[in-house]
């Protein structure tokens, strides 16, 4: 029995135990026991992934059907290397989130229903990348959707926004499921069986291949939260309990990327050029739009949700570039792009877990997720602040974090596509520089966004009583964050072997370990060794540190009331810049894209119109995609609904008429 087998077998067992424990244990100990079992389920999933990555075969099959009446075929779990990567991601994220939930969940988030839904959600997520055929895949997909919807629903009694979020989420999830169902149906129609091997062996051709691709890409893009089907993310992530937001954002949406990789690498590998162009546009628009919305948002969890759209957009961009390069025979550079996609997946999973858990920790301590009302938390909650800052470092793609490595590999693949000379491909020659610009703008705005998050939430002084009276959370909440932060730094410092594993998962060659723990890309002539960079920085830092320490001994820091007079009074924290004012220049620059609504009320004193007593400023950001695309559709649905209401007017005769008409139609059809 291999590690993969053990993992696959232990998953349903642990999921069942966690489910039973959630229902059976009483309120006081439910979070501890169910949370621990869920964390173990996560670890089992991660172990399965490790097994699959090591290349150990393993499978688990269930025969399904109604005994004696119908046989529906076998459901098979047989993860390959690509699935292994995603199993590890899902497992580690699920385990950290469940661990955090032990301390975090209370009240409405720790009910029987909530903890019972968690193992369903987690197991569903682990079935998807392990599935060996389309039916099992869709089954896992539905379990995942079911579990996450129940979890999202948990705080509906206290906050009315939750209900609207659940509605949006359920609608978009079903849209995704229907698209996938239709897409796989097209694939299965031309194949002999439902397993991936069978589907890949005889793929459809021509129009039906494109139809399948569009349907599947649409379904996976909806789950991945790409523009314009991202609308559920900024609603569901803020309203879900934070540990669930972490699992949804860091693991669940990633399965959309797994789906896209599955389709483009395995099921339909030789698509026409416009597939890649379509994905490139989708990814580029998502990246820029996502981070732009994130940079001007003040709600911390909403901001993180939009940042998820941005990161998923970057992954799809990388995938599209890889497809494009492959189609022109530039395998080596395409491989680098694919490795970048996997590194982005791993990096985003690590840092988004930390950031959402950090947001949860802040929410737990202050009851606030509005950055405008936070501040000074670094002194009140140093452990949360430190871990979250490391997550933000990766989100801003700065060295020495995982985000930096992933973005570096992506950029290297972008600038090394062959674009020169009359023989080079024209589409690539136009697409690559635009993509570089898009990635760069995204990186720049991400920098601003996460400086805003860290600077406004943790630095300076509290902007509300809740922030000034916050207390650090217990270790059960801070330790999972620290583990996540450790992963972020670890991946950033020793990317060598991670990149090797990523390369093996997508069948890429030309990735080598280099330096102390770095990664080399010989095909594009590039090398990155973060450890050496750190050592060099330390060597440079030594003289600086010596000078500073000696000077500090002679002239120590002196604390005064007001170090600099012109700042005026330091006592009033409301004088500080808020998150909204921090992003104000950006809102002005991108006014045409964001179209904020602003209200400015100036109240004058009674004595004179020249004296201002009070200025009230309100700014509301409405998602322009939602306003332009969804509101008309929703209005149309309402209108159709109104029309349909006319069919029912309560008259018995009309209902009898319907039945009669139906009967006649059926008889006509039968006799035909």
């Amino acid at each position, binding site marked *: 029995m291999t590690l993969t087998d053990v993992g696959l077998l232990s998953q349903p067992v642990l999921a069942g135990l966690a489910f039973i424990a959630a229902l059976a244990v009483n309120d006081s100990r439910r979070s501890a026991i169910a949370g621990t079992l869920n964390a173990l389920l996560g670890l089992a999933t991660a172990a399965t992934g490790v097994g699959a990555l090591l290349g150990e075969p393993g499978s688990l099959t269930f025969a399904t059907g109604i005994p004696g009446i119908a046989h529906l075929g076998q459901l098979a779990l047989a993860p390959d290397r690509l699935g292994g990567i995603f199993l590890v991601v899902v497992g580690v994220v699920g385990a950290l989130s469940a661990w955090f939930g032990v301390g975090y969940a209370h009240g409405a988030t720790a009910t029987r229903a909530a903890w019972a839904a968690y193992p369903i959600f987690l197991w569903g997520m682990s079935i998807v990348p392990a599935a060996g055929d389309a039916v099992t895949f869709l089954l896992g997909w539905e379990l995942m959707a079911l579990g996450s919807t129940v979890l999202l629903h948990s705080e509906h009694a206290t906050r009315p926004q939750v209900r609207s979020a659940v509605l949006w989420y359920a609608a978009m999830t079903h849209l995704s499921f229907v698209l996938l169902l239709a897409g796989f149906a097209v694939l299965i129609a031309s194949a002999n069986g439902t397993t991936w091997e069978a589907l890949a062996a005889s793929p459809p051709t021509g129009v039906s291949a494109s139809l399948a691709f569009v349907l599947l890409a649409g379904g996976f893009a909806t789950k991945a939260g790409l523009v314009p089907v991202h609308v559920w993310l900024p609603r569901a992530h803020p309203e879900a309990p934070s540990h669930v937001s972490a699992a949804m954002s860091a693991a669940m949406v990633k399965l959309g990327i797994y789906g896209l990789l599955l389709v483009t690498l395995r099921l339909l590998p030789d698509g026409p050029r416009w597939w890649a162009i379509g994905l490139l546009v989708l990814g580029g628009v998502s990246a820029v739009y996502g981070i732009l919305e994130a940079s001007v948002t003040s709600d911390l969890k909403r901001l993180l949700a939009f940042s998820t759209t941005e990161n998923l957009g970057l992954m799809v961009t990388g995938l599209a570039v890889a497809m494009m390069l492959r189609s022109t025979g530039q395998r080596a550079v395409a491989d680098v792009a694919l490795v970048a996609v996997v590194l982005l997946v791993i990096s985003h999973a690590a840092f988004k877990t930390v950031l959402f858990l950090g947001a949860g920790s802040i929410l737990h301590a202050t009851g606030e997720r509005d950055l405008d009302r936070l501040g000074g938390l670094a002194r009140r909650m140093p452990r949360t602040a430190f871990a979250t800052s490391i997550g933000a470092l990766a989100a801003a793609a700065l060295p020495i974090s995982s985000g930096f490595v992933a973005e570096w590999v992506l950029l290297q693949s972008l600038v090394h596509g062959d674009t020169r000379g009359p023989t080079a491909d024209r589409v690539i020659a136009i697409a690559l520089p635009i993509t570089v610009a898009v990635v760069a703008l995204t990186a720049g705005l991400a920098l601003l966004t996460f400086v805003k998050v860290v600077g406004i939430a943790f*630095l300076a002084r509290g902007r509300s009583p809740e922030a000034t009276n916050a207390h650090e959370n217990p270790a059960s909440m801070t330790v999972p964050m620290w583990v996540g932060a450790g992963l972020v730094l670890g991946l950033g410092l020793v990317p060598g072997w991670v990149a090797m594993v990523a390369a093996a998962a997508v069948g890429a060659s030309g990735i080598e370990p280099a330096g102390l723990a770095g990664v080399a890309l010989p095909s594009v002539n590039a090398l990155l060794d973060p450890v050496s960079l750190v050592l060099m920085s330390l060597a440079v830092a030594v003289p600086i540190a010596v000078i500073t320490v000696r000077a500090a001994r002679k002239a120590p820091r*002196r604390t005064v009331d007001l170090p600099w007079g012109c700042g005026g009074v330091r006592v009033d924290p409301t004088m500080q810049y808020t998150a909204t004012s921090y992003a104000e220049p950006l809102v002005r620059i991108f006014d045409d894209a964001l179209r904020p609504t602003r209200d400015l009320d100036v109240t004058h004193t009674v004595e004179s119109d020249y004296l201002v007593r009070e200025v009230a400023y309100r700014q509301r950001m409405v998602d322009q995609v939602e306003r332009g695309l969804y509101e008309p559709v929703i209005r149309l649905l309402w209108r159709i609904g109104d029309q349909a209401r006319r069919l029912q007017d309560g008259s018995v005769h009309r209902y009898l008429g319907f039945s009669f008409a139906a009967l006649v139609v059926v008889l006509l059809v039968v006799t035909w």
Partner: protein
Amino acid sequence: MTALAVAWQILVAVALTPVLVGVMRQVRARLEGRVGAGVGQPWRDVRKLLAKEPLAAEGAGPLMSAVPVILVISSLVSVALVPLLGIATLAWVPDDLFVVVSVLLVGTVALALLGLESGTAFGGMGSSRHMMIAALVEPTVLVAVYALSVPVGTTALSSILQARMSDPTTVISPVSLLALVALSIVVLAETGRLPVDNPATHLELTMVHEAMILESSGRDLGWLELGSWLRLTALLGLVVNLALPWGVAADLGVGATVIATLAFSVKLLIAGSMIAAAEVFLAKVRLFRVPELLAGSFVLAFLSVTASYLLV
């Protein structure tokens, strides 16, 4: 041996930086009809500031003293990575342009956090503007990097420079000209020079860089000043070497290094003087016209990439 060369490069940069700033200030003062404080004044300022005690407000965090040190280290590492004197690089820390940009960004971000940590309205204002400029500069930087890397096939600065040294005519090709103009605008924006930011301003409402460091004093301010100046040396030195690749040492020999040091000093100081002279005639543009300037530089960088496809 290479490590020694890198150490020498850092030493030269640190020694030259206050002189560069002094020359720039002196040129400007003379052109404006003032006597000026002398070329050595920035050096004396830094020495004085480093010896003085920093003042801290009640409840100010450790970031107030950590950020200046981080900024200096980030600037020093980028000075070490950029081939200012010679093209020899450390084997495991290549002078990859993306890495250089990221290392500089660490300093940018540290400064922005310092502005917020001070907890005053001006600090936040400066930080917000600083990050806005940094965010919008990013596309120009990376596209210009792309343009420079296309003819060479690598983003390693030393290889780019070597190609220019072996064939100096490539320097005046459209690719290179457009990329250099774009990069120069970036350097002005990143180092807070006119027309993006006025380093000599005393009016808080127009400040960007100065607003963030208003609360710092003594040793902290000394490091902050030195760190920001070193960024100027690194970036200006890079552009100068790309524009005039002559004199850069091709090997680690002592003779070549001495020539390279002299050549670099002369090139840098002349470039600095030219910027200072130009600044006399420039006014700071409105903050919301800075994006226009950056969009212009972006388009130049982009055209440079487009042009690079054809001029093989």
